[in-house]
């Protein structure tokens, strides 16, 4: 039995315009592609972290995760995550509504559905495939640094208005290019600011997993389902995330209910991020009491290029495979178009 797990993760994502489902490359950087493990991955037990920081969803994101005990890098875990709200056009959604959504609008804007398949999940009896579906959404989505947002918005307004006048007056190309450059800079600053949610974020998630031993469809059965809440709080200075998870899981074959409670602290400074997490699992028998404790280092050495390392102890699911020794590498696949769905 292998105790060590070497993981390389390649995260690919693409956003889709509802009107233009085209295979064009997107300008989105890989930083944005760093989608946390989908609920389906969490239930399959193949997520690098048991306590993920909530992030706003992309219209469509795909994750490939390779985990192998024998140094094979062929991916064994796949997930696709879709944010249904963003697959449709929203001509009536104003800038103000987007930034100050009520609870219902926040739930809609941040709802994402995931589907995952794994050939290395610890819940698999032997060989076979485990598949999961999940959903998550923000009940509370924190807030953006409002003062800074208003300041940047005001500057962007001034530039856009100048661009409009330049277009009306057919101003020289150099003038228009200069304004466009200013617009680009301000827009990217707003994009970064909006992603950096502060204060309390509360994410709710749920999912269900089925296993197919020997890859036989007829032998498929529900293995696990669960639901959880992840409250998270971010301090801007120092940049510290405090995350708490409370999770209910139902292990169907074993007819037992499991409860997880845990926390994760993440400290970030420039390209370096350090975190530690502890999750305690309780069940209806003393044998099901187990825990997970791990430390994680992540370093961004260039835009969109990350190295991550995780070491620790995983939940004991009965097989004794509790060591977590992960090395993660995010490489710049994010700008490669992966979907071509034709144009309306």
């Amino acid at each position: 039995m292998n105790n060590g797990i070497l993981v390389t993760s390649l995260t690919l994502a693409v956003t889709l315009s509802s009107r233009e489902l085209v295979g064009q490359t997107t300008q989105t950087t890989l930083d944005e592609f760093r989608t946390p493990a989908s609920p389906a991955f969490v239930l399959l037990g193949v997520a690098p972290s048991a306590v993920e920081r909530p992030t706003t969803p992309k219209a469509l994101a795909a994750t490939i995760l390779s985990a192998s005990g024998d140094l094979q890098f062929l991916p064994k875990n796949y997930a696709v995550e879709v944010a249904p709200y963003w697959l449709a056009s929203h001509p009536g959604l104003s800038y103000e509504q987007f930034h100050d959504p009520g609870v219902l609008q926040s739930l809609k804007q941040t709802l994402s559905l995931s589907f995952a398949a794994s050939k290395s999940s610890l819940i698999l009896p032997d060989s076979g495939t485990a598949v999961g579906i999940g959903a998550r959404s923000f009940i509370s989505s924190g807030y953006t640094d409002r003062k800074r947002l208003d300041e940047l918005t005001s500057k962007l307004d001034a530039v856009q208005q100048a661009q409009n006048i330049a277009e009306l007056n057919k101003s020289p190309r150099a003038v228009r290019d200069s304004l466009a450059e200013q617009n680009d800079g301000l827009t990217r600053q707003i994009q970064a600011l909006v992603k950096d949610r502060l204060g309390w974020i509360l994410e709710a998630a749920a999912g269900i997993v089925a296993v197919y031993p020997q890859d036989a469809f007829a032998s498929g059965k529900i293995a696990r389902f669960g639901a959880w809440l992840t409250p998270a709080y971010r301090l801007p200075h120092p940049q510290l995330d405090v995350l708490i998870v409370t999770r209910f899981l139902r292990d169907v074959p074993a007819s037992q209910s499991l409860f997880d409670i845990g926390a994760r602290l993440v400290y970030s400074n420039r390209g370096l991020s350090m975190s530690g997490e502890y999750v305690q699992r309780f069940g209806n028998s003393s044998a099901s009491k187990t825990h997970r404790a791990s430390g994680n280092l992540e370093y961004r050495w260039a835009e969109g290029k990350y190295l991550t390392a995780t070491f620790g102890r995983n939940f004991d699911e009965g097989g004794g495979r509790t060591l977590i020794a992960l090395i993660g590498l995010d490489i710049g696949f994010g700008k490669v178009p992966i979907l071509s769905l034709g144009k309306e």
Partner: protein
Amino acid sequence: MKTLHTNYKLDPGVITITVLVGSGQRGNTLVAIGGQVFANGPVINALEIGKGNELAGKTLSVISNVSQTNTSTQDAVVTYQLRGGEEDREHRLDDGFADGEVQIQFVATFDLTESP
């Protein structure tokens, strides 16, 4: 740049225009007839541009610059609502931010014509 060129049939009453920038993106819109600028800002709501009998034969220009401040979607959409003419009209222009692009200009022109 995304463009729209159409006409709008007038009635003698007051003509108004509303411009909505959707998908949670930030946009500013300029409304002009010839060299006369009526408004240039983020909110264009029921803006009066004149009476129908004074506008016939003129061209209404509506220029919007939209920035991708919401990265959850690549969509940019602008809706134009014209009221007070022979009938209320609504037009919509959609576009998507392409690779490396975070701004799109939408230019709509309406030839204002008298009702027959």
